[in-house]
């Protein structure tokens, strides 16, 4: 699915973004770009937070994160994702859940 379409969905959600303090990070970008053959995070993340650029590098923007944990669990070969919950009160704030 195009990211634009996911973004339309996420637009309905309520977030309090912890600007400048993303709760998830890629440990070593070279592993994603060079070693990882599958880049599953870009496929499986339900919020489309991961995109693969033309040069094969994976870019992560956590603003739309639904805090499900999928990216961390699928990165089982390289364990290249540093995953934490956002600081208290930040991140997705479900209106309905």
């Amino acid at each position, binding site marked *: 699915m195009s990211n634009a379409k996911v973004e339309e969905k996420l637009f309905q959600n309520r977030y*309090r973004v912890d600007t400048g303090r993303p709760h998830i990070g890629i440990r070593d970008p070279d592993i994603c770009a060079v070693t990882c053959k599958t880049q599953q995070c870009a496929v*499986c993340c339900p919020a489309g937070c991961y995109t693969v650029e033309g040069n094969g590098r994976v870019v992560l923007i956590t603003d739309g994160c639904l805090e499900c944990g999928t990216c961390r*669990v699928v990165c089982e070969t390289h364990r290249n994702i540093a995953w934490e919950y956002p600081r208290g009160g930040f991140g997705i704030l*479900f*209106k*309905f*859940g």
Partner: protein
Amino acid sequence: MAENFDAIVVGAGPSGNAAAYVLAKAGKKVLQIERGEYPGSKNVQGAILYSDALERIIPDFREDAPLERHIIEQRIWVLDEESFIGSHFRSDDFNKPPYNRYTIIRAQFDKWFSQKVQQAGALLICETTVRDLILDGDRVVGVQTDREGGSVYADIVILADGVNSMLARKAGFRQELKPDDVALAVKEIHFLPQEVVESRFNVSGDAGVVIEMMGKITKGMMGTGFLYTNKESITIGIGCVLSDFKKQKCSPSQLLEEMKAHPAIKPLLEGGEMKEYAAHLIPEGGYNAIPRIFGNGWLMVGDAGMFVNSVHREGSNLAMTSGRIAAETVLELCAAQQSLTARNLALYRSKLDASFVIKDLKKYRNLPGILHRNPQFFTTYPELLNRAAHTLLKVDGVDKKAKEKQVRDSFREKRSLLGLVGDAYKMWRAFE
């Protein structure tokens, strides 16, 4: 806030609320820590509430709990690309109080449950993420929060921190989740006028309908779709085992889009306004995936303990029951003046073993593996069933005996006689 509590409960979902409520009600000094803005703001579920588990904790919950619709009809649909074959069970018995189950909206329900917990005497702190357990040797003595000076101590820490249970993993109590053991579910809520929901699903008052779906909508992945009616909205979602999403290179949001476009589903959503998109991991690994759930000074409840019965789509009731039993275990040990060591807290596991929570998980322990090794249950059979119905129901001058033969042949061609018998045996073994 270097204060000492009898118990700290991490998380204010169904399991954490159940545990905190039972402990507080018995007079224990309970601190509950929730990372969301309010309880429910981080929580995602279908969502069906089964009355029994809650009734055992709050018998009169129906008086003020925010409930959407009580379910009087369950539909099970097996879909191929353009059709479905299904069964509907509707009973007026389900339309007589006290009702057996309800649809709920978790952000509202969890907030209500939490108010009950606070009224029972527990102290709730929101907007606070617990970062680590504080250990003294191998004994959990408290938690470290992301608040300044945020160490708090207690005789017991109950981990109700959900499927990802970061705390248990950081403390080395459990391994990382395996993609085989969790389902990724995505869902949306669509708002419609109450009378539209009611006429569309042939219900009135507070009655409601649920539809569980399997077949081509999951593109061969092991999983199911669902559609639940709320008062003025419809929840629609789909979940598949995460390892299948990996294998199929299938985006979850795309999967949901295609499901919503199915000719049998699309008219049910017509005119609705989508107001939220959510995703969640569901611990569906079953009995074999249950981690260590107790240790020196700690207990694990709810999704963190992998207590989900994926066959019957039950989770929140297992969560509440495990939370209640954890609290009862603590109370029993305290009353007997026994210390909260791993050896004594093993009582929690044996109590759970004797309850429906573990009994049901044990009953279906082979099912996840069998379904996973046999994708035909999600692809070939839905297609065969739908084609068979189509063949038998279409009036086109072909005699009925020839039509029956066509159906038989189609099954044999796709699965062979041995395959059919083998599949029947596998299903029998799985559900035995």
